[in-house]
């Protein structure tokens, strides 16, 4: 089903804002991770790691799913399709992979928060390089996805090529 132009623009706006919002939220999370490793103030370091889990559940996860759902709607509701163009397919794979890893990583953030909230834990135990590595990887993936959406590099899948041939033969 092809969306009406007004609805298509609305969904596109939602997709761009949630996707770029997710990227920005990950950049903020990356700063928290760097801050946690670099700050000399114990309370600030603990606070940085404590806030990571709620930021994950209330900002990153909702934005990830919003980006995925609006992207699916946008691709299925326009001539681009979900599986016709390689750039759309790779964007979908990046989005699904990043969301899956994020959901799995929430368990680690729970543990990171528990250690940060434990007064008996040394600061060296609280500091953790894992959030930095994961946020950097996520940021890289989301920048690649954004670049794919902007450049839209050429290349149709076998399914997409068959759809074009079918449409051409239907037209006579």
């Amino acid at each position, binding site marked *: 089903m092809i969306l009406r132009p007004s609805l298509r623009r609305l969904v596109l706006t939602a997709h761009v804002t949630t996707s770029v919002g997710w990227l920005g939220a990950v950049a903020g999370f990356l700063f928290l991770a760097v801050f946690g490793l670099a700050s000399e103030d114990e309370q600030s370091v603990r606070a940085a790691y404590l806030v990571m889990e709620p930021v994950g559940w209330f900002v990153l996860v909702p934005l990830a799913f919003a980006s995925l759902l609006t992207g699916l709607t946008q691709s299925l509701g326009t001539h681009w399709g979900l599986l016709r163009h*390689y750039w759309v397919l*790779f964007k979908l*794979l990046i989005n699904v*992979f990043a969301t899956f*890893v994020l959901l*799995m990583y929430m*368990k*680690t953030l*729970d*543990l*990171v928060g528990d*250690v940060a909230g434990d007064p008996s*834990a040394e600061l*060296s*135990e609280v*500091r*953790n*390089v*894992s959030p930095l*590595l994961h946020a950097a990887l996520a940021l890289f993936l989301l920048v690649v996805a954004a670049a794919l959406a902007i450049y839209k*590099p*050429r*290349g*149709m899948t076998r399914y997409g*090529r068959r759809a*074009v*041939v079918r449409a051409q033969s239907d037209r006579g």
Partner: protein
Amino acid sequence: MVDQSLPGWVKVFGIVALVVVVLFVVLLVTGGHGPGRHMLGG
């Protein structure tokens, strides 16, 4: 006429994606990754 050739960027992306997914699965299966694996104390 529809272009049948696979663009170079798709080949590069495909190989990178395959390597990342294989690495990810190997890390998960071998237990070398996952919750708590990065904790200094655990």
